[in-house]
């Protein structure tokens, strides 16, 4: 046993898969200890906030200001405020005014602003330019002037009795706050989803639930497959015929379609994560049963099994003591494959809107489904679906790598 384990952990494939899987598993276990927010708690008003650090504006106004004299602060501020569309419009105006196109560089904020200040005349109108358009340029110019001003902003609060605004402080352009002194800072490494929930917290919980679903479904499928395979393979005769018949029946009705039909008949209300796991388990045992059966048939007439039979051991004893140990490695590999395919099955079901009901726990498939319904992929909100895909792929990838590693240990012919 010790030797086998040593061999397994010398296989690079297995080790890489194992490490990836353990990292995922540990994240699922440890993350909730530190961040105890409800995974489905709606925190954001609005959909799809970008990943980033969110600093409370109100609190930062109250925090102690520090003055930092940074040279490029003004340029950065203007660059950030000046949208691509504004730059385009400024270029259009300058071109119409007769500035040669090769002098205008809309990516260089300083030169663009310089040209604008030199040439712009609010009263000038070009042929074909509507009055609304002229007004638009006047507004743009005014806002640019606002951007270029160096005076601070006055903070005022309303006097409760007179309703008059009373100045309570000013914010200079050189004022900074230390983020550590601001009371409320929320880090959203993966932004928020369509319902305004923290994607990372949700994702960690969803990974946990999907792994549970995979485990439950995989264990059920492997147990059914193992039992039927052992019975069919060892007992043979009518039992074998019957089992093969059931197995064939389940082979010809594609599992996924069976899964769709059953989950739809159960109805949205009754479908919890566990129910889905059980349904997946009960529909996906077929190939395990077949494979175990054929392995058992090849073992059935081995000498040690015959010896055991001659010694008068019971069928149960022979199966447990003389056959199971020989297919144990195979069963473990089958279990790993079953778990990973169950996770995929849940995800595919949920994408079709036939997954677990949506009110209790997130699963990887449900997160995918929500992102698809709210068209995250069309809107370019990558953080709502891409991390989910990566996690799904990493789970199945790590499990298959482990499997390949085990395969290489137990089937030495494959070791290239």
């Amino acid at each position, binding site marked *: 046993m010790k030797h086998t384990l040593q061999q397994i952990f010398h296989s690079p494939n297995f080790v890489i898969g194992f490490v990836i899987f353990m990292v995922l598993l540990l994240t699922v276990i440890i993350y909730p200890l530190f961040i105890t927010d409800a995974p489905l708690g709606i925190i954001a008003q609005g959909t799809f906030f970008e990943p980033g650090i969110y600093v409370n504006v109100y609190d930062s106004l109250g925090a102690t200001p520090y003055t930092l004299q940074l040279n490029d602060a003004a340029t950065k501020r203007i660059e950030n405020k000046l949208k691509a569309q504004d730059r385009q419009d400024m270029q259009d105006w300058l071109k119409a005014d007769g500035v040669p196109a090769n002098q205008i560089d809309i990516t260089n904020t300083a030169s663009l602003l310089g040209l604008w200040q030199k040439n712009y005349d609010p009263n000038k109108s070009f042929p074909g330019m509507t009055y609304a358009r002229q007004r638009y340029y006047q507004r743009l110019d005014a806002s640019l002037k606002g951007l270029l001003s160096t005076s601070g902003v006055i903070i005022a609060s309303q006097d409760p009795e007179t309703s008059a605004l009373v100045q309570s402080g000013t914010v200079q352009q050189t004022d900074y706050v230390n983020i550590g002194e601001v009371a409320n800072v929320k880090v959203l490494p993966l932004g928020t989803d369509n319902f305004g929930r923290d994607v990372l917290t949700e994702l960690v919980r969803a990974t946990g639930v999907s792994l549970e679903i995979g485990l439950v479904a995989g264990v059920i499928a492997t147990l059914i497959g193992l039992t039927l395979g052992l019975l069919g393979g060892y007992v043979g005769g009518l039992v074998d015929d019957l089992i093969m018949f059931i197995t*064939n029946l389940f082979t010809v*009705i*594609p599992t996924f379609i069976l899964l769709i*039909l059953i989950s739809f008949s159960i109805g949205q209300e009754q479908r919890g994560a566990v129910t889905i796991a059980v349904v997946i388990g009960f529909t996906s045992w077929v190939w395990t049963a077949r494979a175990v059966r054929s392995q058992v048939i090849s073992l059935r007439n081995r000498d040690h099994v015959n010896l055991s039979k001659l010694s008068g051991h019971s069928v149960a004893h022979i199966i447990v003591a003389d056959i199971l140990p020989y297919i144990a490695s195979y069963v473990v590999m089958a279990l790993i494959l079953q778990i990973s395919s169950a996770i995929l099955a849940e*995800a595919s079901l949920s994408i079709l809107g036939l997954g677990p009901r949506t009110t209790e726990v997130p699963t990887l498939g449900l997160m995918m489904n929500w992102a698809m319904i709210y068209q995250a992929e069309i809107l370019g909100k*990558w953080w709502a679906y891409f991390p989910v*895909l990566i996690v799904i792929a990493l789970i199945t990838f790590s499990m298959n790598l482990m499997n390949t590693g085990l395969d290489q240990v137990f089937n030495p012919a494959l070791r*290239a």
Partner: protein
Amino acid sequence: MKGYLRYFLNKLVWFLVTFVFAFILNFILPRLMPGDPVAGIVGKMAQGMSNATGVQAIYKQYTELFGTNKPMIEQFFIYVKNVFRGDFGFSFSQYPRTVGNVIKSSVWWTVCLQFPAIIVGWIIGNALGALAAYLKGGFDRVLMPVSIFISNLPTFGMAVILLVFFAVDLKWFPSSGGYGFDLLPSFSWKFMWSVIVHYQLPFWSIVLIAIGGQAIGMRSMSIYELNADYVKYSRFMGIKDRTIVGYVFRNAMLPQITGLALSIGTMVGGALVAEIIFSYPGLGTTLLNAIMGGDYPLISAITLIITVMVLIANFLIEIVYGFIDPRIKAAQSD
């Protein structure tokens, strides 16, 4: 030959029995779904009608037309009789179209999408797998993890990634449908071009995943064969490497061909999700709509088609294997 005939008949009987049970399951399972589909149609028909007796009459007429007022057993025998005449009845969700009509308009989309995709994926995957086994070294070390990773992406994952990259960001291909929404099916160049453009993303999302899976399988088989005694013996005999590779390839091919036959058999049910994500007008999308609309004549018919195809593929494989595989031949003489 007598042994083979017995083997053949034995298999045939089992397949027929399996077919009957699968047929019954196909009939019953969709009908266990909750909700009354006829009520949905009547609701649509009777929109704006305030006369309760009128609505009642319409409801009665439709239940009689669809036969849903009869007991399940009687419905089953009527269904069997009709199916043998090739009549699958009316589709509930797309009434007054018949099920045959709905399927006829969608099945070719699926077949034309899946069949070439499976073949192309199979050929490329096997070639890469065999190369990896033969060349080993760097090629193998790069190809294997990549193949495993790609084949482990769920179909919808590959579909979404291709969709975002090529349809949303680069805008090379349209994101959904089988042809432009402003066109009617016809044999014009414009329509053909639209079909070809819409074809690319679903096609490649299926092909890429198939390549990964096939490459892994072919690599294992080839390595297994390359270490076999006959290869060493041939080397001792001084047979040219090229010829040996030919032998190995042919032997490693056999299980792969089984895989190909199976995936052609299961193709209709194989990539439902890819079709659904691209709203491709094939059987997958039709099936999903049928399930959502509680349209069990349509569901039964589609699952029946899938079942029959899988059944035939399995049967053919077993029959052909009975001819080829000496071990099965030996078993027949027992």
